[in-house]
């Protein structure tokens, strides 16, 4: 990568922040239009659109975050890792939006109905479990917490994400009727990202990189 880590920190991060905020900004703006009785982009069932949209983005950003490590080893640089915390926190933010959309806009703060859903409906239970498991990760996302826990324990804690994403994927698969492509595509991407983490696969990567390096060096 030809971009310096400093440039990435100074310009890359604000740009990433802006890009990751766009879906949320779109969602909120359209809800405001909808409630004002103006034309909006949420379709004929705004609640359904909003639940799905926020959930889709939470999943996409989670998977995007999991792609950073394989990307880093493929590029042979740690620079992608600069964006990992931001992506994790944005994923958590979209999960919160997802829950606000469901509990406030859809269920209209009917807490009894929410509790019944959590207890009785497996796909809600699964989704809620994934959301709750994200809380300690968001909470301990600061450098201060890395120091306090020690890098090793912090890392072990944050491996929870390997449980959270499958739960979120299961939640997605269960809420669709019949056998639908979309949840399976997301699951396949997750499986691919996990495969890239296998030592065997990583060693393969390194070997090809080692083979490439001399050629790269000989370039003028």
């Amino acid at each position, binding site marked *: 990568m030809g971009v310096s880590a400093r440039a990435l920190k100074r310009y890359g991060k604000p740009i990433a922040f802006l890009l990751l905020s766009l879906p949320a900004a779109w969602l909120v703006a359209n809800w405001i239009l909808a*409630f004002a009785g103006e034309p909006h982009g949420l*379709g*004929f*069932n*705004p*609640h*359904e659109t909003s639940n799905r949209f926020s959930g889709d983005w939470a999943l996409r950003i989670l998977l995007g975050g999991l792609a950073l490590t394989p990307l880093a080893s493929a590029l042979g640089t740690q620079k992608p890792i600069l964006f990992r915390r931001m992506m994790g926190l944005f994923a958590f933010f979209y999960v919160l939006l997802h829950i606000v959309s469901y509990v406030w806009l859809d269920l*209209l703060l009917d807490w009894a*109905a929410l509790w*019944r*859903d959590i207890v*009785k*409906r*497996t*796909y809600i239970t699964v989704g809620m479990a994934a959301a709750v498991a994200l809380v300690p990760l968001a909470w301990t996302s600061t450098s201060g917490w890395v120091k306090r826990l020690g890098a090793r324990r912090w890392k072990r804690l944050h491996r929870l994400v390997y449980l959270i994403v499958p739960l979120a994927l299961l939640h997605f698969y*269960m*809420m*669709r*009727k*019949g*056998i*639908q*492509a*979309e949840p399976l595509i997301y699951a396949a991407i997750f499986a691919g990202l996990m495969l890239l983490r296998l030592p065997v696969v990583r060693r393969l990567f390194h070997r090809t990189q080692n083979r490439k390096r001399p050629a790269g060096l000989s370039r003028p």
Partner: protein
Amino acid sequence: LQPLPHAKTSFDPGGELTPEEAITSYNNYYEFGVDKSDPSRNAWRLQPKPWSVAVDGMVERPAAYAFEDLVDFSALEERIYRLRCVEAWSMVVPWIGVPLASLLDKVGVQTGAKYVRFETLADEKQMPGLKWPVVDWPYVEGLRLDEATNPLALIAVGLYGKELPNQNGAPLRLVVPWKYGFKSIKSIVRITLTDVRPRTTWERQNAREYGFFANVNPDVPHPRWSQATERRIGEFGRRRTEKFNGYGELVAHLYQGMDLRQYY
């Protein structure tokens, strides 16, 4: 879409109709894709004319009928029905059609027939959604004969004064407003009278979640969500769902003595 001359009827729940644009662009019709906007985008591929309906099984006059010969177009009536989807949203739709019973009279039901089985077209050239096995194609639905001959059961050929748009099930579809929307099968190509209960598509796909009867019932939750309330398309709040979608006076007697928790 040609306008259809029709008689007004007293079937009208009152209140506002769901806008035509919502009825024709927010659809579940998986043969054209699983997103709500897919059918209105993809259903132009469907050729609703000419259209032949195979009528077979325990009938007096089995044949391949042109759909215009099955539906008496001089007897069309408008019926404004509530539609309650199993996904907990609802609409109010001004259908145009004839009672299903009039079709059954035309083909002659043999004694001993107990059920009517319906089948939707399954043609990959016209229906891009068939490439993906969301459910077992073709789509199959069924009614008990006494349900089918209930005056409320309608074969619709029109909507909002005109012919049915493809995404709404052109050229002819079933409308059984006291049942969840998936029972109201679209674009019918086969009607079979039989003495065995047909295995319907959603029952085959997941019998625990979708029963053969599928009567609208706020007291029997879907395993994945409550059916106690619904969202009327166009509204922000939730409404209480009525048993038999509010048509109990006309249909509750069909299920006397049946445990609706068991036969959901």
